[in-house]
């Protein structure tokens, strides 16, 4: 009997212990937690998509820093000169900037960072490949980029260039494919901190989260910034909703569906920040495949498409006006804009060489990625049917889109894609979307291959004067609209849920730095107690 009582007592104690331990979790007092796609690449020479860049803007420093007005401010570089012929850019570095391991950031590190980036050739290297001839160390705090040819947008691209610690890279080189540089430290940098930014790696569990802590020796005053920043590798709506409700997540990434955002907005203290981004959605048309090789068919589709319905499907979006969103400097705000007009669509079709034979040319539209893209594809199918064209909608995978885009034959008639300007100039998007150099990639499935357009873009890039360059971008935009290789769908907003009750986030108030993901720069955020 006694034995039984002892057993009951022991079990009760165990249960009480478990119950006591179930109450309360220790939460860091000043932390911003962000749900992100996974895994991010923290190596600035490798990762360039949103989540990688989010990690990089907090771990590394650029030479110059963008502001919300589209200007560029001194950062690691305290000043810079441009030669009159536009072939040399000289940067004067701020002394005393320290990497996270305590060593000083010098011109050698800047040279190593650019050399490494161009040798590896991944990530954002395409911005400078073919433009930079060499990086020259003039003295400890002076570095020059000598150009192959004048490249007008160079300064605009530089906030995407992050400086890595040369010493650590060279100490951690392993055998690899880059000749005498081995793997150029790729394996090491993929999980180790080689930056000088406002945050440094505290704990990086590759399959789970990336936790950063504030850099106590940062060269700028970041005393009011949150102590820690954690990127959590999940975009699962249920988990995000649960964490937001428990105040264990401060901000979400941009890939949530409108339905999820709507449910998050109902949580007390959570608000949805919306701002116009540099992104645009397109329906690309493979102009080398019949019947889309006929401009009248392409224009007919552009006239037939119901833009109003598409806008309603994506809250906060507006119909695009041409190939570049109006938020991007150098875009054409006076460009021609199609609207739904079935009569005009049918008139265009009558001028087509395929008129009367459209049933012989069924077309395929591929989509991938998001429910809104599926809806756009279905809308295209319905609208095309209204004017007698057959479009079959096919869902596909990202890897198939990439591989199918490699040749004209395998590229389908239509793709639904979203793209954004990598730096705040219209030329960034125009080149990515339509220049022959990017043909065969997912970004350019129109197969324009137009030497006239290529020449227009190269001429604009070679123009140093900003206003003159922007005028050339607008001319190129109009040229594209006239050729109608795409249906310009929507300027898509960036929508993110955040804890408005205790988080002061400049981007949510409209103070957005466009184009580089600096809206995820945590040092600008303030957490209220």
């Amino acid at each position, binding site marked *: 009997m006694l034995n039984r009582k002892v057993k009951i007592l022991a079990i009760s104690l165990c249960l009480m212990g478990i119950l006591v331990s179930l109450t309360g979790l220790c939460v860091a007092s000043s932390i911003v937690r962000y749900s992100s796609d996974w895994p991010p690449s923290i190596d600035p020479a*490798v990762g360039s998509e949103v989540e990688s860049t989010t990690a990089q803007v907090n771990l590394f420093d650029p030479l110059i820093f963008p502001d919300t007005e589209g200007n560029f401010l001194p950062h690691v570089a305290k000043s810079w000169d441009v030669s009159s012929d536009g072939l040399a850019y000289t940067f004067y570095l701020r002394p005393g900037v320290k990497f996270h391991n305590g060593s000083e950031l010098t011109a050698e590190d800047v040279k190593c960072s650019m050399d490494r980036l161009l040798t590896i050739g991944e990530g954002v290297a395409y911005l400078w490949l073919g433009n930079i001839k060499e990086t020259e160390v003039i003295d400890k705090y002076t570095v020059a980029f000598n150009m192959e040819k004048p490249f007008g947008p160079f300064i605009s691209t530089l906030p995407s260039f992050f400086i890595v610690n040369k010493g650590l890279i060279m100490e951690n080189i392993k055998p690899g494919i880059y000749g005498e540089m081995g793997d150029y430290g790729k394996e090491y940098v993929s999980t180790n901190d080689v930056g000088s930014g406002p945050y440094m790696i505290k704990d990086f569990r590759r399959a789970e989260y990336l936790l950063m802590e504030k850099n106590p020796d940062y060269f700028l005053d970041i005393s009011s910034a949150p102590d820690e920043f954690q990127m959590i590798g999940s975009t699962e709506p*249920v988990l995000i909703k*649960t964490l937001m409700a428990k105040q264990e997540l401060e901000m979400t990434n941009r890939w949530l569906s409108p339905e999820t955002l709507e449910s998050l907005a109902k949580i007390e203290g959570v608000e949805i920040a919306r701002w116009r981004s540099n992104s645009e959605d397109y329906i690309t048309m493979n102009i080398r495949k019949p019947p889309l090789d006929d401009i009248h068919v392409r224009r007919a589709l552009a006239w037939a498409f119901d833009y109003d319905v598409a806008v309603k499907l994506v809250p906060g979006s507006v119909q695009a006006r041409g190939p570049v969103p109006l938020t991007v400097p150098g875009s054409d705000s006076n460009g021609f804009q199609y609207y739904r007009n079935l009569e005009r669509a049918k008139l265009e079709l009558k001028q087509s060489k395929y008129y009367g034979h459209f049933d012989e040319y069924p077309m395929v539209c591929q989509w991938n990625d998001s429910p809104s893209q599926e809806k756009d594809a279905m809308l295209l199918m319905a609208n095309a049917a209204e004017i007698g064209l057959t479009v079959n909608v096919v869902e596909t995978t990202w890897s198939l889109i990439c591989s199918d885009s490699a040749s004209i034959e395998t590229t389908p008639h239509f793709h639904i894609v979203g793209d954004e300007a990598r730096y705040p100039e219209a030329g960034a998007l125009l080149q990515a979307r339509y220049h022959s150099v990017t043909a065969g990639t997912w970004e350019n499935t129109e197969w324009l291959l137009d030497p006239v357009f290529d020449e227009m873009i190269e001429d604009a890039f070679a123009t140093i004067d900003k206003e003159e360059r922007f005028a050339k971008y607008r001319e190129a935009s109009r040229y594209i609209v006239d050729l109608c290789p795409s249906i310009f769908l929507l300027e898509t907003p960036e929508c993110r849920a955040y804890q408005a009750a205790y988080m002061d986030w400049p981007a949510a108030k409209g103070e957005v730095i466009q184009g580089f993901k600096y809206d995820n720069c945590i040092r600008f955020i303030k957490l209220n107690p």
Partner: protein
Amino acid sequence: MSPLTKEDKLLTKRKSLMTSFLSMVRLKMKDRRIIFIVKRLFHSVFVLWGLSVLIFVMSRIAPGDPARMALGTRAPEEVVERLRIAMHYNEPIYTQYFYWFKSVLRGNFGVSLVTQHPVLEDISQVFPATLELAIFAFIFMIVIGITIGVLSARYNNTWVDNLGRLASYFGIVTPPFVFATIGMLIFCYLLNVLPAMGRLSPGMIYPPKITSLITIDALIQGNFKVFIDALKHLILPAVSLGLLGMAEEARITRASVYNNMKKDYIAAAESYGIPVRAIMFRDLLKPSLIAVISILGLEFGALIANAFLVELIFNWPGFARYGMNAMLQKDLNAISGVVLILGIIFVFSNIIVDLIVDFLDPRIHLIKERNE
């Protein structure tokens, strides 16, 4: 002491003969088991080799250029070509296989094109998380499944049986991710008694690695705070993952126990007045569990392979999620490594199950041998 009679001597002789015969049989059984293990291991080599060929060919002929996928669409062609050469992608598929198989035999699965780390190193980081999850799901599956099954059979056609059957139907028709989602909403969101994600709460420090299973490592080092925290993180994912298996085990156990209850030896035991509880645990459970244990090997492998959705929902840094990401990103080396390791788990868990079944009922093996 009276001298031994002739009959006594004969009896003693018979006894000693019987003893030596039994020891011979035991030895034969032991030898037979060793031969069985060797045979199965020998077969496993061919199974795994076949699997390696299959997965290698399937991953290589799938559309998409892995080098281009790894380096991004904007990487210059010469850089992509350099990677293709380094990974032998430009060579015939049998040459690629030869290079790959050679390095696998040395324990090198190559470098992940996504993480830039050796695949084996990646797997060694994520596998313990899934193993720990699968072990807890397995324990839940066995303990709860068998208990429900035995109780249902014992109290056949009563409310206990009906409740047990309802629970097992519920487990079978509810996909793990649905239970995970609902469980998270109830226990993490509404009641707020369980953590929603990860293996440990923020601020908790991972115990130094011994087994890489946090609960075990924490217990070994006497760190009960971490143990309790890790346990809390395990409850929902493990229950979600083990629910389907639990339901299957419950149904099989119930059927098996119920059938055996009708056997003559049980009736005989009951007629001798042996208590029902003793019959259940001493005479009924062991033969009834053979059917259950036969499928446990497959169940354990399936727990690891099917953990993807549960890992995704609970942001569990595991092996299944790693494998799925590798497939989505056409990370060839990682795909091959993951599938081969899964194959090894399936093969060895089945060998272990066969040995357990053989131990529980040697007749099964004898029948197999006779048939062969």
